[in-house]
Structures are given as C-alpha cells and as structure tokens.
C-alpha cells in the first residue's frame, strides 16, 4: 500500500516537505434538521495563522467545537501531523496538542484567576492542590505574555472586566504548549486597548513559536494584520481561501456583502 514517494495526492499546501500540521477533510455536522456544516475542508500549515471568517450562524463555532474535540463530526476526517485522528474528548484533543479559547471563555466566576488558569490541569501533590505553585506560575505566565493589569491572581474571576477575562482565557491556552491553538472570537468583549493586547499576543506567538493558530472572527478588519491566510465560511462550506497578501478588506467586504445583496435581490425577484 505504501508506495515509495506516494505523497498526498492533492495536497494544496504545496510540496511534500510542507505537510500541514492539521487538516480537515469533508467534515459535516447537523443538529436535527439544521445543517450546521455541510462539507468543510481546510488545512493549517506549521506556524501558520489562519483567519476563519464568516457571518453569525455560518457554522464557525460548530467547526471550532469539532476541531477541539467538544463535538464529534457526523462525517469527515481530521488529520493531525499526517495521521487521521478521532478526538474522544476535549482532554484527548488537548493531550494531542490542540487547545482552544472558547467564545464564552469557559471561565468559572466563583474560582480565582489562578484556579481558572489551571482548570483541569492543576498541580497536585498528595492529592492536594499546590495553590502556592499555581499562583506563582499563573503570575509568571501572565507576565510572560505581557498581561500586567491583573494585580492579584487570587481574586475571583467574577470581579474582572471583560477584557481581563479574555486575557486570562487566552493566557490559559497559550501557556499549555499546544501545537494548534484555536481562538474563537478572541476580540469579542474587548476594548480597543485590550484588543490590541490580544493581537500583539498573537503576533508574538507567530514570530517566536511554532504554534499554528486558527483565529475565528466576524470582524475581519482587526485580525487581517495577524493572519497569514484567510478562509471564509458561508452556509457550512469554505467559499474562499487566499493568502492575506493577495486579498484585502475590500475584497472580503465585497464577498460578505455580495452574498447579502444577492439574497436580497433573489427575495426581491421572488416577490415581484
């Protein structure tokens, strides 16, 4: 079966030396009668930052939750480092090097900042939490990625601002040594200053580490500058795939708006 030199037949990422770290092939997902994803294929190169754009309801969150092991796809394959994988759970996906910042952040208001940062990966000794160690590490991690506006990591997350919460959720995923990082709407609920902080963070990671990222957003103007390539998800399919250098805000705006105009025109035609 394994012929010598049998490189992946139609690998759009390029030559055999440029194998994508993560590939999604023909993934579909439906909830009852609602088709969330009809047929999604995408690829993510090593160290690449892929921007995934789409309107509300295009299926972005569903796709992300499949990629991180939270949902199981109805059809299709996920290929990690050339090996087909089936995620049994979020923990399983994480153990294989895929980590995520959820849109809703998955923070527990009643727990402290450092407990949230180590949620489900606590340091334990003799079955007791090593709070002092986690506290210190949390402080170090936050400082290392330039988040300095959280003075006390012992404070309950409920007491923090939206941006601070986002920063903690990002810090939690960033410091887990993931191969692939999924960021679902990382700029939601952020002020301009805090948004810039997260964008700088992504920029730093792109420059200084091997981690590959998929950044989901509906406000593409902000994330265009940090992405290497842009995909657009519409009606459960990828309809657009270009390097950022070859596209721009105008083209993307056209793409998004044209769809809306077409739909409107069709409605108008149907009505007349």
């Amino acid at each position, binding site marked *: 079966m394994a012929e010598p030199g049998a490189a992946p037949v139609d690998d759009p990422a390029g030559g055999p030396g440029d194998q994508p770290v993560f590939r999604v092939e023909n993934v579909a997902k439906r909830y009852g009668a609602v088709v969330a994803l009809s047929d999604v294929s995408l690829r993510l190169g090593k160290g690449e930052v892929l921007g995934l754009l789409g309107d509300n309801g295009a299926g972005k969150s569903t796709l992300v939750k499949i990629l991180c092991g939270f949902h199981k796809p109805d059809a299709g394959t996920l290929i990690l480092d050339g090996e087909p994988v089936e995620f049994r759970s979020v923990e399983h996906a994480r153990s294989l090097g895929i980590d995520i910042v959820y849109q809703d952040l998955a923070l527990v208001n009643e727990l402290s900042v450092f407990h949230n940062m180590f949620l489900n990966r606590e340091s334990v000794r003799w079955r007791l*939490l090593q709070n002092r160690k986690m506290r210190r590490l949390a402080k170090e991690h936050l400082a290392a990625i330039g988040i300095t506006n959280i003075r006390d990591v012992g404070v309950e997350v409920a007491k923090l601002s939206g941006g601070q919460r986002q920063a903690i959720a990002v810090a939690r995923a960033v410091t887990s040594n993931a191969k692939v990082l999924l960021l679902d709407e990382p700029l939601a609920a952020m002020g301009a200053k805090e948004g810039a902080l997260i964008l700088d963070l992504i920029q730093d990671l792109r420059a200084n580490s091997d981690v590959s990222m998929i950044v989901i957003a509906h406000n593409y103007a902000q994330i265009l500058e940090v992405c290497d390539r842009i995909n657009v998800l519409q009606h459960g399919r990828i309809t657009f795939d270009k390097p950022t250098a070859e596209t721009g805000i105008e083209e993307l705006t056209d793409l998004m708006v044209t769809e809306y105009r077409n739909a409107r025109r069709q409605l108008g035609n149907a009505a007349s």
Partner: protein
Amino acid sequence: MVTTDRPSSTSTGADEGPARRGTTWRSLLGAFLRRREASVFIVAIGLMVYFRLSSDVFLEKPNLVNIAQATAPGAIVAVGIVLLLVSGEIDLSVGMVFALAPFLMHYAADFYGVPPLLSILLALVVSALIGLGNGLIVCLLKVPSFVTTLGTFYVLFGVVLTTSHAYPAEIPPSMEGRIQSWLGAANWAELIWCLLIVGYFHVVLTRTRWGIYTVSVGGNLLGATEAGIRVNRIKIGNFMITSVLGAFAGIMEAFRVNTIDPNLGGGTTVTFTAISAAVIGGTALAGGSGTIVGALLGALVLAELQNGFNLIGISANPFYLILGAAILISMIANQYLTRLRRAGET
C-alpha cells in the same frame, strides 16, 4: 466545644467596629468578616451568650452533650447537601436514606447473619447505590434533581414502611457494646465523627481537584464541560457521597437512641435540617459557592435554638413558629453581613 476556643477574641472585636483601633486589629477583623462563615459564627456565639444568660445549665456538660448530639447528625448530612448545592443540585431523599440505612443493617445482621461491621458496610454500599441511581437519573435522563429525589424520597419511604411493617426494631444484639458506643451511643461519639467528616470534606471542597470541579460544575456547567471536566462524574459522585453520609448519620443516630424507628428523626426532618444548616451556613442555593464549616455552624445554630427554647420552657406548640422566625431573622442578618463583607472587600 468546637466554637468556644478559637474566636472569643474575634467575637468581642465584632462589636468594636466604630472604635478606632490599630490597623492590625482592623485587618484581623476584616480578614475574619471576609470569611463566608463569619456571619453564622457570630449568630452561633450570640445564641450561646443569650441562652447562657437565660439559663444557667445551657453550657453545663450534660446539656453540651445534648447540643452536640443534636448538631452532629444534621451537620453530617449537611456536608453532603453542601457538596450537592455547590454542584448545582439538591437531594431531598437523603433523610429517607437516613431512616432506611439502620434497617438495612438490621436486616443483614439479624435475618442473614452477616457479621456486624459487614452489615454496616453493606448498608452504606446500598445507600451509595441509591445515590448513584439519583445521580444517573439527574445526569443522564436530565430530570431535575428536585423532582428526582422527591420521587426517590417516597420510594424509600415505601420501602422502609413495607419492609419494617411500620414497626421499630431493636439494635442487633451482635452490635451492642463496643460497636454501638463507638458509632454513636457514647457521649461525644457522634460529635467526633461529625468533626472528622466536616474536616475531611472541608479539605476536599477547598483543597482538591474534586472540590474545584464541584465549584466549576455548579458555577459554569457549560464552561466546565468545555474545559474537559467530566461533569456527570462529579455530580453523580456528590449524590453518592450525600447518600452515604446520610446513611452513616442514620446508623449512628439509631445506635444513640438505641432503637431503629421508621418514624424517628429520618425523613423530612433530617432533610430540612440539613438544607437549613447548609443555607444558614452561607451556601448559595444557586450553586457555585458554599462552605462545609459554615454548614456545621448552621447545624449548631439550629441545635442551639431547639435546645435553648426547650430550656427556657417554651412549649412545643409555638416552638416551630419561633424556630421559623429565627431562621428567617438569621438569614436576613446573613444577607446584611454578606453585603458588609462585599463592601469591605473592594
């Protein structure tokens, strides 16, 4: 007693609020008031002072034994209730497990000749399975825990009455003597077990993964799931812990009163006492936060009220009226103090 040694200094500090003292004093006071258990602690001490002033015997040894014995079973059950409330669930059936467990032990020992300790263990295991059933119905079949455990409550009630023919039973002869006194009959036995259990689960809730996950599950169920926490395992586990603690408290109480009675103590009384203790102690019904030490103090407050009213000589009829009013007042005071505490934090 638990409560007399530590805070005599702090409790005097509470009424010195307006007076300007050194900063250490104020920060000590602040640190104390910031604790969730502070308000119920003050109430417990206040009641103790009030009843001591009203009745000379309130703090004498025989009466302290009474208070300890009235506190312990409720507090033990309340430990489980706190774990469940924090994880966003509730168990109304635990009072009936409390009534059923000593019968299970009695059936095993007297009808099947099972050795004493093994019969007790058997009763605890069956109770754990009852908790497992509750948890599975709640987590997998998605029936709200209030309804599920209400159903279980009546099912177990039926089981108790049917199997016992509604007659009390004697403590199995094989258990009389050492086992009976170690497991409840000796003066301080219940209290000692209660303190061990409270201490253990306080550490579990505040210092272990299980505790953090319990808080997470009750505070943000979706978030906990997204973080990869096995939320059903946590909830089901807490249902099982609650049932086992209910069974253990029921067995000890049977040993103490020296009879196994289908109508004594178990049922709604225990359930309500435990929930009251948990809530008075500062555990939120909404899930996500709670304190086990607070629940112990809550049970102490209830026991003090009951015992103190008895000593003062309030007749049985208006007793519940006053108890109810006392619960309401202490809860209102609790809310007020909580607000003060919040204000102190920022």
